[in-house]
């Protein structure tokens, strides 16, 4: 990779400082900021296979929910019998010590990243042969099925839901929990960004693009498309799982269809955010997720009861006026700017021209 340019360095360090300072600057908004980080991770990683690879998946929620259940299960299961914890109306109370809580969530998050990735590999092997609408519908089914199945498994609470371990009571500072989850999600965001950025500079992205633009031709060029498609989806699953694990701990209560396998909301949002910002770009999903979150948090309050109508209008507006997303729209309007931002050689030549 080329060395990071000075301008980018300023931008990135600025963003990181802002990210680190945010929970102190906007202390009251910690939870919303945590959501924002998670939403960006979801949009960014959805974009990898939705935007770059051209495989529109509505099933990434599967990995998100899986990650959520896995983290909570590991966190409980490491120290207590899981079945007794989740037993509906269970009379026993188990309390995690501070050390147990953090060990549990650490191991849990690790598991919640790896297992969804493996699952994505296995499922991907089976269904990534489908293309276009067939793939989209198939993945839609995956998310819904997962929700219904999880709602029937007693050991993870079934329809009763799963209360995740509460934040250790020994930590007296009421802000500690908010900060912990914020920094955790911010860390995952940075991790995901660095990784995606790396992919953007690699041959892997070109292969994904080749698959999107003409899969048969890519195959004819000697690219083992199946292999790359699976890896692409596994990367998405890895980060979706992590995001789910964090959200489970943050929300504190996992419900099979409303919180974990929440295809109707999170599953659609991650697609929407990527499209809003512009799929197939590095910054598009990030900008899309941020705008979407602001729109949601801001407007939801003022139009009580009508928020979904507003969301519907937003979707229509995006599809009609910004079919390529905000980044796509900007790129069309100011192509030279994008030359500067995206293509280094082009930027230099532009600068010289000036």
């Amino acid at each position, binding site marked *: 990779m080329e060395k990071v340019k000075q301008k980018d360095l300023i931008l990135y360090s600025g963003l990181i400082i802002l990210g680190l300072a945010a929970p102190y600057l906007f202390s009251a908004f910690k939870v919303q900021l945590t959501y924002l980080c998670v939403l960006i991770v979801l949009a960014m990683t959805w974009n990898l296979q939705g935007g770059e690879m051209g495989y529109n998946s509505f099933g990434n929620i599967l990995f998100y929910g899986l990650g959520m259940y896995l983290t909570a299960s590991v966190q409980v299961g490491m120290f207590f019998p899981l079945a007794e914890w989740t037993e509906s109306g269970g009379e026993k109370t188990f309390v995690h010590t501070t050390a147990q809580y953090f060990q549990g969530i650490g191991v849990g998050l690790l598991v919640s990243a790896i297992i969804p990735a493996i699952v994505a590999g296995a499922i991907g092997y089976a269904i990534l042969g489908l293309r276009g609408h067939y793939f989209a519908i198939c993945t839609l089914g995956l998310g819904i099925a997962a929700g219904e199945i999880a709602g029937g498994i007693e050991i993870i609470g079934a*329809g*009763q839901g799963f209360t995740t371990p509460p934040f250790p009571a020994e930590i007296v500072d009421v802000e500690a929990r908010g900060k912990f989850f914020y920094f955790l999600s911010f860390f995952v965001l940075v991790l995901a960004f660095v990784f995606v950025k790396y992919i953007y500079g690699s041959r892997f992205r070109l292969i994904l693009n080749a698959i999107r633009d003409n899969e048969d031709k890519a195959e004819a060029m000697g690219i083992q498309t199946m292999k790359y498609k699976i890896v692409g989806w596994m990367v998405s699953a890895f980060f979706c799982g992590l995001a789910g694990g964090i959200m489970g701990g943050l929300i504190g209560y996992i419900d099979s269809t409303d919180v974990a396998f929440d295809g109707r909301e999170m599953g659609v949002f991650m697609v929407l955010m990527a499209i809003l910002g512009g799929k197939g770009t590095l910054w598009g999903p990030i900008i899309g997720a941020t705008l979407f979150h602001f729109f949601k948090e801001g407007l939801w309050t003022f139009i009580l009861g009508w928020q979904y109508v507003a969301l519907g209008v937003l979707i229509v507006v995006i599809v009609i006026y910004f079919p390529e997303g905000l980044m796509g729209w900007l790129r069309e309007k100011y192509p030279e700017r994008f030359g500067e931002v995206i293509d280094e050689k082009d930027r230099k030549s532009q600068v010289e021209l000036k």
Partner: protein
Amino acid sequence: MNKLAKLFITFVSAITLALASISSSFAKVEDGMIVLGSAISLTGKYSSNGVHTQNGYNLAVDRINKMGGVKVGGKSYKFEIIYYDDESNPKRAAQLAERLIKQDGVHYMLGPYSSGLTKAIAPVTEKYKIPMVEANGASRSLFTKGYKYLFAVLSPANQYLEVAIDLAVEKNGGKPVKIAQAFEQDAFSQDVRLGILDAAKRTGSKIIIDDKLPKELNDMAATLAKVKATKPDVLVVSGHTKGALTAIRQISEMKVDVPMLAMTHCDAAKLSKQHGKKSEYALCASQWHKNLSYKDKFFGTGKKYDKDFKKEFGYAPPYQSAESSAALLVFKDAFERANSFDRDKVRDALKATEMQTFYGNIKFGPGGQNTAKPMILFQVRCKGDVCENKVVAPTKWASDKFFHPIPPWSERG
């Protein structure tokens, strides 16, 4: 630095400033107002019950404010509620609770609708030590978590239909019965199921069908087909408002004959209005009925509450509204006894609550559940085309005799 980057930085700093300026939280008691917060399901699958809850809250706020408000330290305060729509989604509810407490500076909370949402909010209120009086989270597991700031004016969910099984056994000459049951996969209904399991064990009854129904319940034909084939003595269905409506609709369509039908949420679903004679003989668990003999000085009797509520909102109050109104009475009482806005003093006062409201007696057990009020059962009975809910148990308030068994569809007009 190019223009785009400048634009970006301007944008970010503008947002930073905007957010920083509004992040200082407001006081919870200002200008003679006590601000309460609540996340309510105004959209989504619980929207009808969410509105019942909100109406109950609003009616009580109006009434208390009109009758002099809350007197603390010799000054009179008025209640005000900040509502958000939780979209019937626990994730959203938890987030909104956080928002109410951190951004809106709310120091006292009212509960949402449904056990699942209460389960999502309780950890948040507990963390910030915010007293919450809730009226619609009945799941037993809410009261076994050792929550200190959660108070529920209702009886736990497992008590809803236990009595119905006892009644079925009694009608069967004391012999065990065959039970068919179908429950929505949500925290509340699953708790009702636990109650039935306990009752079945106690009476030696056998559960021959034990189905789980999906949320967004619109079809339970598969369960009913099994019921038709196996002929149980009692069919138990619980799935909030939609569950009650779906059950009656399909039982009448499929002409399923079962001697006893026990359900929840009949009054919230306005069964007797919506389905009329088709819903006759359904036995329903309820937290409250207007004919009960409780009273208080704000709403008078249950009948008076029924009348006032009808006048205000145009429909008869289901128990979800009544219990929600009662939550405000509990808060008022606690504030006045604490004579302070110190949250811990208010909490202690709530803990020591022992009062009668039009809705029933209220006294909180160690887990926060109301231990002073029994559940009641009513049965839908029709005269001509007009159907009404008649209390049949417990005998103290029973206005009618329990009708058993339900006549087969071939004999029903």
